[in-house]
């Protein structure tokens, strides 16, 4: 019964994530801690496994359509993986309250970005040539994104995509596809560390993976039929609530 409930939670998180264009981690972690009483680090470990599954399938499509810049991806992965290993190692030592506060900050930041999101302006045509600039900035931002991913179990696309578009001057679609290409490897580097520490509960991870995977497909199907823009405000509010709940947990001293 619990397995089916976890799969249903994953289905909801995957659907919402696909509709809102964000990863499932930001939804999965607070639900597992608040709804199922999972310790924070265990919820982060489950989230990382979910991220491997969802980003790998998205990356497979993007790579097949030649949208990902694999050359940029493999270079930036050097930094994301180093950051992820460091972040996940620090997560084992850092006070849970600090990790939850960081998670709450990322949730509120994501809510603000979603709230202020505007329709994309004119885009460069697909396949148009571009020159990659500011590799140093990209590598630095990727290391930070990897570290945050390892600390709190989110994908880190909210850092990488803006840096790749604004600093490295990649077209938006290429940046999104390349970020997805990297996220699975980054999450795996962190997940191994959590697994080694005994933080990963496979009995929880398996149903949530299935639910999020199915939900991501459902969300992609619904995307054209549901006025997703109207859901953005409600979802932004939900993220703020989830972040607030984390802060509340910190104040009550929950694990």
């Amino acid at each position, binding site marked *: *019964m*619990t*397995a*089916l409930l*976890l*799969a249903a939670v994953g289905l909801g998180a995957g659907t919402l994530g696909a509709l809102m264009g964000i990863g499932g981690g930001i939804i999965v972690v607070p639900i597992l801690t608040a709804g199922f009483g999972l310790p924070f680090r265990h919820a982060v470990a489950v989230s990382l*496994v979910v991220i*491997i*599954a969802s980003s*790998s*399938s998205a*990356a*497979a*499509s993007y*790579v*097949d359509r*030649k949208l990902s810049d*694999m*050359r940029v991806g*493999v*270079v930036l*992965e*050097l930094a994301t*993986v*180093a950051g992820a*290993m460091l972040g996940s190692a620090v997560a084992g030592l850092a006070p849970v309250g600090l990790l939850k506060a960081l998670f709450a900050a990322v949730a509120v930041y994501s809510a603000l970005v979603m709230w202020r999101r505007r329709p994309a302006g004119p885009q460069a045509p697909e396949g148009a040539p571009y020159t990659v600039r500011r590799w140093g900035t990209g590598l630095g931002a990727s290391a930070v994104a990897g570290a945050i991913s390892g600390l709190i179990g989110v994908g880190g696309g909210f850092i990488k995509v803006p840096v790749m578009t604004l600093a490295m001057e990649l077209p938006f679609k290429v940046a999104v596809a390349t970020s997805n290409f990297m996220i*699975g*490897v980054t*999450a*795996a*580097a962190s*997940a*191994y*560390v959590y*697994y*080694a*520490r*005994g933080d*990963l509960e*496979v*009995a929880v*991870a*398996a*149903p949530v*993976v*299935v639910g999020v*995977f199915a939900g991501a497909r459902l969300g992609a199907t619904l995307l054209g039929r549901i006025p997703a823009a109207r859901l953005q405000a409600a979802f932004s509010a939900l993220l703020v609530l989830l972040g607030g709940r984390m802060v509340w947990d910190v104040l009550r001293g929950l694990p």
Partner: protein
Amino acid sequence: MNRSVSLALWAGTLTGVGLCGAATLAYALDVEAASHLARLGVIALFVTPPLRLAVAAGGFFAVGERRFGAASSVVLLALLAAAVHAALR
């Protein structure tokens, strides 16, 4: 190379998700093999990123782009070291 990388990603992901799906059903039906299936599913997902890195590294070396092949190989070695460390715990 794109096709090979894409196939590697699909193969690992679908195997992992399929095993996780079987595990979920087994948990729901209280079948004893559930935890083994869940562990296998997670391991299949764990293997997917290194598999993708290996295929990409091979692809880059095959077309003579050694720097990118080397970058992929370095990340692959780091992941394998972490995976071996995790497996030995």
